[in-house]
């Protein structure tokens, strides 16, 4: 059943993005940025955690999970260090994604050339 939930959640997020892209003059960059901010907003009051429980990996695939993980890592250190924790733990959970993207892009750009 969780596969159906994952399909529905991730599909609806992508569909909202597609509807915004088609009906306004915003670029894909605007949409991904907006979705990250929405993800951070939803997680700051524990709403996104319910989506993760409901849809599992399906809620972690859209870019909204990036904002969710940013604020999640920050909140973990806030519990132990107070306000300074906001500066310390922000990238705790997202570092894997950013580092993977940097490493793969760097090494692939050495071996491949653009196809245009």
């Amino acid at each position, binding site marked *: 059943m969780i596969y159906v939930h994952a399909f529905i959640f991730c599909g609806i997020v*992508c569909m909202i993005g597609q509807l915004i892209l088609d009906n306004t003059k915003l670029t*894909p960059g605007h*949409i991904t940025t907006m979705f990250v901010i929405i993800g*951070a907003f939803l997680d*700051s009051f524990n709403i996104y955690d319910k989506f993760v429980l409901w849809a599992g990996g399906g809620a972690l695939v*859209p870019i909204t999970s990036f904002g969710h993980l*940013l604020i999640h890592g920050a909140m973990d250190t806030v519990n132990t260090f107070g306000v300074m924790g906001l500066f310390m733990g922000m990238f705790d959970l997202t570092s894997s994604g950013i580092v993977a993207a940097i490493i793969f892009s760097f090494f692939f750009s050495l071996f*491949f050339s653009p196809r245009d």
Partner: protein
Amino acid sequence: MEKIKYQKLVDKHTPKENILLNALIGFIVGGFLGVVGEVLVELYSYYLHIPSKDASVFMIVTLIFIGCFLTALGFFDNLVKFAKCGLIVPITGFAHAMMSAALEYRKEGFVTGLGANMFKLAGSVILFGVVSAYVFGLLRIILIG
């Protein structure tokens, strides 16, 4: 005159069908990627004996690898033309943005090309993610404590 009116009617109605079709394609492709993510999480946590929270990190790295690799091979742009937001909104879009910037500016040298421009497209995601997470984190500390 009739023809111009007819053309206007056609112009009015053609994009609407495309919008619905695009939304449906985005829904199906995005949903498929969501199912792939969930399957990967379960496979990793089953075969590597790790909790699903850690397996989700493995899943994100795998999807980023696939996004980078397909972009480097040159397939991804054609797939995006077909699926649009179904591939841009998932984490593969983030990988695609970084990889295509890296490929494009690699010719201009390592420091002034690759180093200066790698985050040209993906940087806004990181910048506004961090700023919004900071602001909402402060709000939450003030409101909830």
